[in-house]
């Protein structure tokens, strides 16, 4: 039996699935997520004023920006847990890194679909190869590759090590995405806060800022809920693998 299977079997006898340990945290997170999402919808569509230049289509901005924030957060968590895994070699760190990357890809997909819808109405084109859009698409491909590494056949710790290195190197693109419109000329993508080489950020009205902050809170809570749920499922999957290994060994003896 390989050292990897020894580890799998050893962990079976000592650990209990997270699902059996507590159901209060997921319930609280789910409740808080639902309440904050409802509050954000009210603030976006009823409370906040309609932007003068773009009109009602500007309301895409709130969830588009909040999703972008969650993308950065998710990949940052993957980055941190990848470093922790390489340093400590504990499987739970790898689990958090993997689940967070998967959620990050979901939020990047939201950013990459809502962006073009907004672009079509504002720029009259679905896509433009400008710095922010291009670097975001590259980010999506990087983490899709990360997920594909995780789904390869092979021993988990080898895959985990390879994915951790990928998760750390891939994170380099996150600050590039954020600063893309501040470093390079961008005719299309607006800067809301701060200044860039070709434009100055105008900021937003206080009522819009409230709607934006609540939207960011709502999607951050959703991210936390999905992370917790994903980690629970991943622990169940590990448990299933451990049982299979134990049964296989019993049959062999």
């Amino acid at each position: 039996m390989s050292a990897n299977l020894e580890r799998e079997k050893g962990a079976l006898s000592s650990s209990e699935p997270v699902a059996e340990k507590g159901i209060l945290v997921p319930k609280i997170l789910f409740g808080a997520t639902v309440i904050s999402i409802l509050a954000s919808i009210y603030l976006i569509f009823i409370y906040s004023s309609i932007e003068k230049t773009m009109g009602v289509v500007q309301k895409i901005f709130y969830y588009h920006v909040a999703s972008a924030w969650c993308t950065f957060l998710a990949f940052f968590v993957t980055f941190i847990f990848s470093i922790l895994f390489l340093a400590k070699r504990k499987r739970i760190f790898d689990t958090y890194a993997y689940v967070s990357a998967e959620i990050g890809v979901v939020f990047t997909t939201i950013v990459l679909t809502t962006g073009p819808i907004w672009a079509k109405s504002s720029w009259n084109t679905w896509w433009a190869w400008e710095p922010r859009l291009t670097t975001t698409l590259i980010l999506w491909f990087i983490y899709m590759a990360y997920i594909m590494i995780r789904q390869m056949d092979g021993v988990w710790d080898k895959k985990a090590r390879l994915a951790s290195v990928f998760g750390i190197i891939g994170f380099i693109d996150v600050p590039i995405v954020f600063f893309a419109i501040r470093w390079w000329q961008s005719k299309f993508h607006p800067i809301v806060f701060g200044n860039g080489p070709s434009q100055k950020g105008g900021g937003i009205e206080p009522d819009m800022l409230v709607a934006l902050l609540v939207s960011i809170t709502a999607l951050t809570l959703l991210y936390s809920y999905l992370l917790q749920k994903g980690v629970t499922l991943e622990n169940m999957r590990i448990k299933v693998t451990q049982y299979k290994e134990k049964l296989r060994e019993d049959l062999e003896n």
Partner: protein
Amino acid sequence: MNFVYGAYSVIWLIIFGYMMILGRRQTKLKKELEFLKHLDR
């Protein structure tokens, strides 16, 4: 307004789609775990 409906529909479709995937994974793993526990007895 169509663009706003379109964008928010896509957002909820992606979120609920992902939650459905997680739900299916959970059901499959629960069944598998129960079966393996039964075999182990």
